């Protein structure tokens, strides 16, 4: 059950990876190993991330493409907030072992100790935030699709994940220091695209945002 949700958080964590490292991935780095190594080295300098996003869901289950928007916050070592603000309000926040999730009408607390799904989130997040290259390479085949702007393609190695997820694309902006686009391509052709804007690194984030 827990692993069934791992994929979702790979997605989130991939985003954080993008934010953390996009500013440091320059176009003149042509070798993927060098790019990844550079990203890993720079990761230690990142304390927090704050960004707005808009999400396009091109899913066959819906008649039309659905656009939603929200914000994403991360602060070292173990704080995370992912929330949708439109068309509905819902999301979750994590701080250490404790977390809270909400919708427009409900708000419930949870503990990582008793919620295997959210426990996976926290563990995965830490792995990505610290840019554990060994773990990353174990989970994905990573290729450098383009270097101007930098575009990484992540193909899942695990057969279970590969059963539903074809690949991830992460695109970095040439001029800015943040990730510009993340695309989630599924095996059945469905696509989720998330565009980030107003991204800020190492800005103070209030503790209350993660409770």
């Amino acid at each position, binding site marked *: 059950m827990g692993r069934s949700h791992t994929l979702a958080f790979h997605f989130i964590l991939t985003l954080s990876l993008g934010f953390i490292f996009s500013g440091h991935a320059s176009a003149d780095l042509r070798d993927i190993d060098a790019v990844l190594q550079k990203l890993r080295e720079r990761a230690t300098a990142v304390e927090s991330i704050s960004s707005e996003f808009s999400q396009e869901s091109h899913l066959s289950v819906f008649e039309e493409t659905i656009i939603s928007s929200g914000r994403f916050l991360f602060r070292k070592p173990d704080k995370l907030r992912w929330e949708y603000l439109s068309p509905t309000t819902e999301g979750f926040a994590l701080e250490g072992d404790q977390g809270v999730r909400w919708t427009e009408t409900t708000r419930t607390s949870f503990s990582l100790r008793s919620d*295997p799904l959210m426990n996976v989130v926290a563990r995965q997040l830490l792995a990505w935030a610290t840019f554990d290259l060994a773990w990353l390479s174990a989970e994905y085949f990573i290729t450098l699709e383009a270097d101007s702007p930098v575009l990484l393609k992540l193909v899942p190695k695990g057969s279970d*994940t590969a059963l539903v997820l074809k690949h991830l694309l992460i695109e970095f902006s040439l001029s800015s220091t943040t990730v510009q686009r993340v695309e989630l391509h599924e095996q059945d052709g469905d696509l989720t695209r998330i565009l980030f804007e107003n991204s800020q690194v190492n800005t103070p984030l209030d503790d209350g945002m993660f409770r």
Partner: protein
Amino acid sequence: MFHLVGRAYDFLAPRRGYLLVLFALACLACSFFVSRLVVREDISTMLPDDSGRIASDFALLRLAPFAQRLTITVSHNGANPIQAAEVLATALRRDPVFTRVLTGPPSNISLTFLTKLLPLAPALLTEQDSKTLYALTDPEHVQTALEQNKRDLLSPGAVALKNVIQQDPLGIRNIVLPKLAAPSRLADVRIEDGHFVSRDGKHALILVDTDIPMTDSLGAAKVMSSYQEALATLPEGAQAMLVGGHRHTHANAQAIKDDLTIILPSAFILLALIFLLFMRNRQSLYVFLVPVCVVGVAGTATALVYGSISGIVLGFGAVLLGISVDYALHVYFALQNSNTDENQTPAHTLTQISPAITFGALTSCTALAALLVSDIPGIRQLAVFSLFGIIASFFMSLLILPHFVTKKTGSLIIKTPHNARRSCSLAPLIALWIAILSAGIWFGQHTRINGDLREMSFTPIEVQAEEDATRAVWGSMRDLALIFVRAQTFDNALEKNDHVWNFLQTNNATSSIISLAPLLPSMQTQLQNVARWEAFWQANGQNTLALMDSKQKALGFSPSAFSPFSEFISTSPETFSNESLHELGIQEFVDVLAMRDNDEFLVLTLLPDTMENAALLSDDAERELGARFVSGSRFRELLGDAMRIDVLCFTGSALAGVALLNAILFRNPRKTLLALLPIGMGVTTVLATMYYFGQALNLFHIVSLPLIIGLGADYGIFMVCRPEQSAQHQTARAVLFSGLTTLCGFGVLVLARHPALHSIGITVLTGVGAAMITALWVVPALNGERR
């Protein structure tokens, strides 16, 4: 007939050298055979095998999920216990002693778990579940479910959930998921990060398997040593508690070893004192060789009869053979007398004492033969062992020992009592006997019998404390009652298991029940469930789909969004097998509750071991269900009852046989009653002592009783025969010496911490002590002898 003994002495005396060589060769052969004996250390030999269900209950109790496993509870003050548990588990896995180390459930549950789980729903749909289906298709719920689905599909988890939502937009999976919990409630655990963790998150659980039987004391020592080595790898501040049979075995072996370091020197010092005070000559040492040789002969003969010998029988047999030194002592002291009396030849003396020794041996054999009626195979083996021992001792004492002790004499320092005969009337003797017998019966009825095997073993305080702590953390996972069903095919076993589950449901006893029935019903039940599923969707399918269609459009879903669901409820569902659960990665749950026993399949249900459940699973209910209810508490009760019957049977038979033999020997009611007096006093004193100190008779007290009966019978016969013998004054010495050596050899066991050794010690000390005092002072007085 008894003069044959004297003639045998005369015949063998000139051939003493050959006799010695032959005897030495026989002893060597026995020693060689004994050294190669197959000694079994299985406690089941000490459980009744003919009392209906005890032995089979015991065998079934051993199949309980935690019966053979070691459970380790890891805690780490202020830190995550999972990490410490994983460190310890890694160290344990490196040691080949441990064949399997489990820190959590199997981790091969796949991403497609929910989509694989859903097709099981039709075959698992019980009558109760169909009510839930009605609730799931309620218009209000349909609206809520579709709104939730939309939110989920737009969340980061959409990729994983999309297929599940398309196939099951109404949440039918929530009917199946709780069924997974039924077999997983083995302990009060939750799963965290793939590990078994306590509810409060402060403890992690490790389950360990080993191929070493828990009754193997050497193997248990190896297990504990390996565990201690692994413990060294625990991070600082982390602690671990081990619970398991191997720990008990090791603790018991260690306790016995510790006890022996006190007992053996004590016994040796006391025996040396007796030797120095009463014998002080080289020939007397041969007397001690008799029981040593006898143990070898008896062990060899028993092994030839049974093919192997129980370690428990060997140990207790050696205790029982304390009787065997009696005859040797009697012969020794009688021959001492003949050496000092020129009118008495050894052959004459042997002829004189052989009736008493023969009847002593016969009564001992009768007392021990009574053990053959026991339902406990170990006690029957003990009887055979002891019978061989007594017979061997009898012949060695009368035919071989005399040739070693007839040359030189020792200095005997006991004053010779001079007796004058004074007849005692029968009435006071009968009154005394009635009083003793009444006391024996009264104490016998009021003395409790404890059938709890656990209380017969030594449990150190720290082991008990850790067991209590483990129980507090994980619940009583090792103390659950079990319901077994058995059949030739796995499906038939599942069918019976379904009946058990339905029976428990009907009687409102399903809380805290761990059963496979909700997750893996029999084919017959599955077909019924499938029919129920089809009937429901035939009646409600179209309406539900129409309702969904209207609502999903409003929420922006495409018309084909839930086509998989439409197909799912309209397709004829299939039943599933054990292999389907294997594919789901939850085979471990099945393996715990289903097993093979030779050609049959066993499925078990676990439930709290309460009086209510025991009453519910009565004999009639068991017959009706074709099931067996087995619980630790019921087992202990049955064992206690069986032991009570055993005690009554064999003490009754032994006393009756001994009384009959005494009557044949003496052909005089007064002498017969007198000869029985030491037995009566011995047994009654044991029972009275137990009653006075509020102790219950256990298995070890019971197997020690034949020693009291055998020795008591010997003492009685020797002392009553004494006036007819020329060496009469030596008889009291023989009885005193026999009693003292028995008390020193086995009575010192009362100092032991181990309950088994202590039980033997208290029985011997009180019983033999009382029998000896009665024989030395009461019997002569009542027999008209005067000092």
